[in-house]
């Protein structure tokens, strides 16, 4: 042991030192792996992000099979079950995996409410992997009416209740996911393409190009959107189906949404341009395209991914606001925004609160995308 109380004591560690071996040893061996592995490892550390990711992947994987998973078709309705409340389900009862209890509906002309009685004495088994309901085409070809679970024979299975036309809310939420979770992505793709190209060009070349892009950004940002929506509602051809209209709207949403990203890209590019490795590439004779594509973009990915995940909620909800203006999706298409729009009346809010249930998936997805975005940003940041 060292005796440091003695000021003159000269301590030398017994361990030897080899300069050659030192040169070859790596600094942080834990970082010694391909990027994707590193990203993956760091991502796994973010528990909430992993859960969110799994959740979202599950949802997206389920989208093609919604017809199979949901017990009802989206437009399937039963006038006897208008505003039916969520039904009770018990598991492992009476020798069945799951049973539900039938409900009786009456219309109360005193209160003008639909009244429902659950008959707990008559459990009805829920058929699993059964054929029921209208036929659907799996992947557009396979005709079938096999469903994961079905309403009991002659009964109903409204897990989240039914809406004002007697349609199953649970099934509609599932079907609505198809549009709500996909079409909005178009808008994001568009806004990202424009934002990246314009922001990139402005940031990389600077000068007059930058000036023009900045003015364009200013103009687009100061232009109120409302009149545009109203003008559009008149301009979209009448015989377009609801989905194409929605598609169109997503595109326009995207066309308006780029300035924020363009500004971010621009400022990031202005900074990245000054990085030594970019300068090195330039001095090696690399072309601007190569510099942007091979050297700058990869280092910008984390930011992009994070912004992308964060714009998704906006796109899902943007549709809701548009529906309010009579511009969004319309029946028979189903989307979460549309369903929420149905909930926009006092009756739904106060008497049939289950009409507002589509809020739950919206919140879940928004949260999931947020946490995923956080996780991805942290994971993709090479310096973390």
């Amino acid at each position, binding site marked *: 042991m060292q005796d440091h109380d003695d000021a003159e004591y000269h301590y030398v560690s017994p361990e030897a030192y080899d300069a050659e071996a030192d040169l070859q040893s790596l600094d942080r061996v834990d970082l010694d792996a391909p990027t994707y592995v590193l990203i993956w490892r760091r991502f796994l550390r973010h528990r909430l992000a992993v859960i969110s990711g799994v959740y979202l992947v599950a949802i997206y994987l389920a989208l093609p099979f919604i017809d199979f998973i949901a017990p009802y078709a989206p437009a399937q309705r039963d006038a006897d079950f208008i505003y039916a409340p969520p039904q009770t389900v018990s598991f492992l009862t009476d020798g069945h995996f799951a049973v539900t209890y039938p409900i009786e509906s009456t219309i109360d002309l005193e209160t003008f409410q639909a009244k429902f009685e659950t008959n707990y004495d008559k459990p009805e088994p829920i058929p699993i992997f059964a054929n029921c309901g209208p036929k659907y085409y799996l992947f557009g070809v396979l005709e079938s009416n096999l469903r994961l679970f079905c309403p009991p024979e002659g009964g109903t299975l409204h897990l989240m209740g039914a809406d004002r036309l007697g349609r199953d809310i649970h099934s509609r939420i599932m079907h609505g996911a198809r549009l709500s979770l996909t079409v909005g992505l178009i808008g994001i793709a568009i806004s990202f393409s424009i934002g990246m190209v314009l922001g990139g060009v402005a940031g990389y070349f600077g000068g007059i190009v930058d000036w023009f892009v900045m003015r364009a950004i200013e103009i687009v940002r100061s232009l109120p959107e409302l009149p545009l929506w109203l003008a559009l*509602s008149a301009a979209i051809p009448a015989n377009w189906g609801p989905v194409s209209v929605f598609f169109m709207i997503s595109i326009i949403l995207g066309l308006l949404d780029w300035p924020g990203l363009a500004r971010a890209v621009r400022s990031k590019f202005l900074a990245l341009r000054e990085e030594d490795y970019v300068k090195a590439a330039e001095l090696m004779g690399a072309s601007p395209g190569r510099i942007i594509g091979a050297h700058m973009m990869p280092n910008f990915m984390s930011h992009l991914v994070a912004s992308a995940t964060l714009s998704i909620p906006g796109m899902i909800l943007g549709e809701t606001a548009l529906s309010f203006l009579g511009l969004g999706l319309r029946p028979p298409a189903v989307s979460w925004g549309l369903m929420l729009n149905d909930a926009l009346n006092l009756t739904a809010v106060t008497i049939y609160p289950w009409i507002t249930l589509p809020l739950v998936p919206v919140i879940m997805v928004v949260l999931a995308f947020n946490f995923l975005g956080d996780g991805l940003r942290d994971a993709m940041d090479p310096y973390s």
Partner: protein
Amino acid sequence: DMVETPILMHPVGEGQLPAVADRAPEEPLIVDIEGKGRRVGQHGGTIRTIVGRAKDIRMMVVYGYARLVGYDDHYNLVPDILRAVDEEEGRVFTLHLRKGHKWSDGHPFTTEDIRYWWEDVANNEELSPGGVPALMLVNGEPPNVTVTDETTIRFEWPAANPSFLPALAQARPPFIYRPAHFMKKYHVKYGDAAEIAAMVEKSKVRGWAQLHNRLDNMYDLDNPDLPTLQPWMNTSPKGAQRYVMRRNPYFHRFDMDGRQLPYIDEVDMTVAAGGLIPAKVNVGESDLQARGLSFADAPVLKKGEEGGGYVTHLWKSGVASEIALYPNLTYEDPAWREVMRDVRFRRALSLAVDRAIINKSLFFGLAKPAANSALPESPFYDEANAEAWAQFDPAEANRLLDEMGLDQRAGDGTRLMPDGRPVEIIVETAGERPEEADALELVAETWRDIGVKLIYRPLDRDILRNRAYAGQSMMPVWFGWNNGVPTPEAAPQELAPVDQANFSWPRWGQYYQTSGGSGEEPDTPEGKRLMELFDQWSSAKTDQERSEIWKEMLAIHADQVFVIGLVNQAPQPVVASNKLRNVPEKGLYAWDPGAHFGVHRMDEFFFVK
């Protein structure tokens, strides 16, 4: 022996206002309230009600319903502001004013006010660059107007003008009188030029005519200074959120006990967004409300009755059909036009609507599944008409379509037109009512089964109308005829191709309205026949004749299904305060004739203490 209104006793005592006897016309309109099965009331109180936009304060003119002539509760035309009307040969009308009748500012209401309107407003090129209103023209000819004395004026046309009196009774009447004493200040012909110039400058308008036009909106009720003859007068300036309508101390109606109507002293109109009206009503912020409430709100309204201190009545909607589809016979696409004009097509579409389900889903079965036809309250009600082509019969519908030659189908089961296009109908709607969308969804479902595809498209009301006028709308959805309770003297203009605003035949209507200037002449036998009948009605001399004409027109419509009605007599919630009396429990909620609360005489409503 008239009774002074308590709230006016003070100003009368102070001498600011003449006593009631001096305010009343020499021959007031005495209302037999008990004779109508109502209770005689007492003065006082404020009715609070909510409107969706500031513009809607004009509803006060509608609800007040003081007209030269107006409908009574049996939809008979009776004199109201006028003491009497003499009608000769349907073309000469002598209007008798009430002697001593006064404007709300106390100035006498005389034939000068009518003359001023006719000569100095309607016939003034600057104020009316478009010329006198069409109502006043018969075959392009204006009437001969003769003022006999202060209370007598005569309109004389060369031929019959049967629309004249019904028009005066409309919910939104063509005010053919103006407070001349008030408006003359702003008229170049009478007023002081320098003063007018100053006023024009001050109100930032572009000339005296605009100023005059702005100030004399009898209907809009937006000028608190403008004298009125209505039961309540606006006292609040433009742009407020709350409008106080105070009783008109010179109103001409009295109950048999000598109490001047209205019983209610004040009506408070508060502006609130349409979506909030149910919520505000629910917590008791309105004493009388129908506007802004729909059947979908009924459960909430019922639930809030106790806390809000009100009762919810369900009236019946007075339109011929709550939701109706209008196949456009003058659609721009020739192939489609052929199809639309084929009665089998329209019948098939009508047969393929499951009205019972729609009724049940949308109105809890409280409406009536029926074609677009006269309501039971109308003398022309005919059950056969109501049920014509209105049963759900997809098989028959299919048969009709096959018979028409639309028997080719695409892969998804949609029928094909002869030229190979799918039978795809775009239904345009103003998108203002959620029920419409729901109903169409149900219709789309049953139509799909007969191979007809329905595409639903909400548009702004104005845009929808513009498209229809241009022949670009295929099949708009709207209410049925406004007038669901036609009487012989009501003009059957909704049933004949005389109006471009009728979605069944905008271009025919245009042709008529522009006297052939644009649009197209009706060229189907039924169209021509309806036109003929309309002309006959216009020159008919007796109610007997008119009734016959009405019946034939209604029958043609029932048979031809020009308008595909889904349901009618839909329930309309009417909320009234617990303390408000004389509000009918059952009633027809109609615009014209009816003026919503108008025919139910809101001036007879009163509060119990």
